[in-house]
């Protein structure tokens, strides 16, 4: 398959992040953290129901990767998707209102936590079936190539998902056809209650592309700058027509798999150790303070702004009405006029 790039734009190279960008990363990660905490609270109040998978602890992955994408690149992920949507620039209000199943949500309440989409932001979901996003993301990359666009699709999936057969079918085609896709494996060490060692014969997931000639790399997924650096390389490579790349992000989720998971399969100490010594937000904060980029007062200001956004979205998500009953029947098929 020939790589033809008629519609290619000139892309600015990804440079070392400057102070303003670093502060932005901090702010983005903090927004996800506070948003997820609020979602957890609303769940506890019965305003959010069903499955709700929080991203707390993994914020550096999506913020670092998204920082090297352009708005016209595509993103796709699984059901642990709130952070990805915020990082893609979707509004807190729209996401939170979808979580409460209200009219103001991204799918007018019809999708819920696991199934949310924004064509405008090139966010292609939000998929509830483990592993499905991998061939889907590969297909988005195929469309880029087909249309002669130099966009890249990033497909995020978990350590558990990386055992699904369809992942490897997609890998093979992506490499065979040199498709512009970056596979970001968010290895948070657990798939529901199963640790990676109990589910995977090869636990170094960045090697999973070897037999398909897809290079891979392990990355400290708790360090937003390391993530950014690795992603920049992988994305550029894919954009230039050199094919797919695998980034295995070593990360950790602090909360249970979903709201109903008591997480008895790991020790309190293990979680504590990650929170205290590897927290992505605290680590960046320290870096910024050490470099004297930012003062404690600046942080307080950011914190206040973020809280304001999150509280506003929570209020919006409660005030927004339930969808009109007629919505039940819309969007099943595209109606031809």
């Amino acid at each position, binding site marked *: 398959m020939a790589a033809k790039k008629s519609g290619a734009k000139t892309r600015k190279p990804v440079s070392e992040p400057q102070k303003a960008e670093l502060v932005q990363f901090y702010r983005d990660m903090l927004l996800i953290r506070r948003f997820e905490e609020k979602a957890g609270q609303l769940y506890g109040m019965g305003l959010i*129901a*069903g*499955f709700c998978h929080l991203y707390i602890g993994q914020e550096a992955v999506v913020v670092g990767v998204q920082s090297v994408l352009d708005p016209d690149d595509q993103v796709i992920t699984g059901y642990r998707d709130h952070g990805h949507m915020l990082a893609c620039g979707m509004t807190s209000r729209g996401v939170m209102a*979808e979580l409460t*199943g*209200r009219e103001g949500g991204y*799918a*007018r*309440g*019809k*999708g*819920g*936590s*696991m*199934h949310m989409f924004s064509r405008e932001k090139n966010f292609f979901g939000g*998929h*509830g*079936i*483990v*592993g499905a996003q991998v061939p889907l993301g590969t297909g988005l990359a195929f469309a880029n190539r087909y249309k002669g666009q130099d966009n890249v699709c990033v497909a995020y999936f978990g350590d*558990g*998902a990386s*055992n*699904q*057969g*369809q992942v490897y079918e997609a890998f093979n085609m992506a490499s065979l056809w040199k498709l512009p896709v970056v596979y970001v494996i968010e290895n948070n060490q657990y*798939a*529901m*209650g*199963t640790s990676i060692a*109990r*589910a*995977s014969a090869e636990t170094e997931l960045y090697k999973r592309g070897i037999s398909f000639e897809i290079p891979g790399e392990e990355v400290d997924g708790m360090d937003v700058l390391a993530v950014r650096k690795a992603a920049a390389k992988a994305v550029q490579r894919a954009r230039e027509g050199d094919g797919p790349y695998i980034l295995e992000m070593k990360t950790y989720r602090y909360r249970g798999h979903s709201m109903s998971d008591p997480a008895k*399969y790991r020790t309190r100490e293990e979680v504590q150790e990650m929170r205290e010594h590897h927290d992505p937000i605290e680590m960046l904060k320290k870096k910024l303070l050490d470099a004297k980029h930012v003062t404690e007062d600046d942080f307080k200001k950011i914190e206040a702004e973020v809280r304001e956004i999150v509280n506003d979205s929570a209020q919006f998500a409660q005030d927004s009405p*339930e*969808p009109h*009953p007629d*919505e*039940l*029947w819309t969007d*099943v098929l595209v109606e031809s006029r």
Partner: protein
Amino acid sequence: MTDILMPALSPTMEEGKLARWLVKEGDTVKPGDVIAEIETDKATMEVEAVDEGVISKLMIAAGTEGVKVNAVIAQISAGDDAPAPKTSGKNKSSAKGAEVHTRSDAKADAAGGKPDDSATEQKARNDGHRLRAPEQKVAAAEGLHDPTLPEGVTYKKTAVRDALRDAIAEEMRRDETVFLMGEEVGQYQGAYKVSRGLLEEFGDRRIIDTPITEYGFAGLGVGAAFGGLKPIVEFMTFNFAMQAIDHIINSAAKTLYMSGGQMGCPIVFRGPNGAASRVGAQHSQDYSAWYGHIPGLKVLAPYDAADAKGLLKAAIRDPNPVVFLEHELMYGIEFDVPEVEDFVLPIGKARIRREGADVTLVAHSRMVKFALDAAEDLAGHGIEAEVIDLRSLRPLDTATVIESVKKTNRIVCCEEGWRFFGVGAEIAAAVTEHAFDYLDAPPMRVAQRDVPLPYAANLEKLSLPNAQDIVAAAKKVCYREVE
């Protein structure tokens, strides 16, 4: 005298040209002799004689176009033997025509539902004023009975999830070859805690945590069953079995048939099916009709704890692949389960949960609850509903349903899934086929609205069928005012 029929040279051929006869009347032919040439738009084929005989009559002139497949083209006399033609040519093909000719006595289908045509006609004529469908044996349910419980039997309040667990444990104690496999069934004790305690009792050789690889472990399970084991494959929910449905259907359901009976597949695929609560479209689908459609499978969908236990034990013992559909919203509900040594129920028998003379309500799985609630409500309006819990979808106990309709003359089929091509459609068809004259109203169906299940609380409620929907439908078939 044997007819030689116009053969079909391809599966889609409907007619062709009889180009040339290579024999004439009075010729003696033996097997392999080419007797004619046939042309289609794609190829020219030769027709061979299969047996010995004398061509007594050529019915179609050479050069005739548009000869329909299966038309008689010649007759051959051969004493007692009946020679049939066979074709050979550039395209290999079988002499369909001859085959059709010798196959006039098609067997009645498995459910015994296919009437003998001549008898039907005869009876219809005798019936006089109106065509009445023949009284037929409609299902294999006769002779199947729940075990008689000993006098003074005690009952234990048991949640559905624990009844399922007890069934698995009892069968695993009884049979070394039974094992359980699935995501989170071991250390996590089951995503819905159905397998609680099993890892402790049976160890990780027989309670096996799998990676998230449904297609792979379903196939592995089928292979293990071919190899002499009796796997119980748990799907975290049946939504995820869609990844594996190829193995359930192509590998498990069809192999016995394809192997001419050599290779059975004693396996149980089980897990929660249907809508949970507020988990959205990809996690809330009812697969009853999907699996009910497939010959080679048995499909069970119990409602209460006793049936869950007795039927799961039967499923594990069954030498066939069984799809066992549970319901997440039923797992925590307690029912009486008889405390007897070995409680096994027959597969293929419905249970009448409530008797009534005015309308039959048919349901399975969680919908039974709504049917019972509806019956209670209807009783308050002077309508006595009979509630039939199907329990088994394949085989389907049509006999019990039809017996009931003969009494009530009205039926409402209730299911949680979509109505299109659904369980209710099947039952309504069976009832119109076998009890048409007894119906005082067209059968009605209560089902999920014909849309993917929405997440929003109000829309989800509007989408799923409930007791009030059943009440309204029942009143309608009783021609009563619906408020």
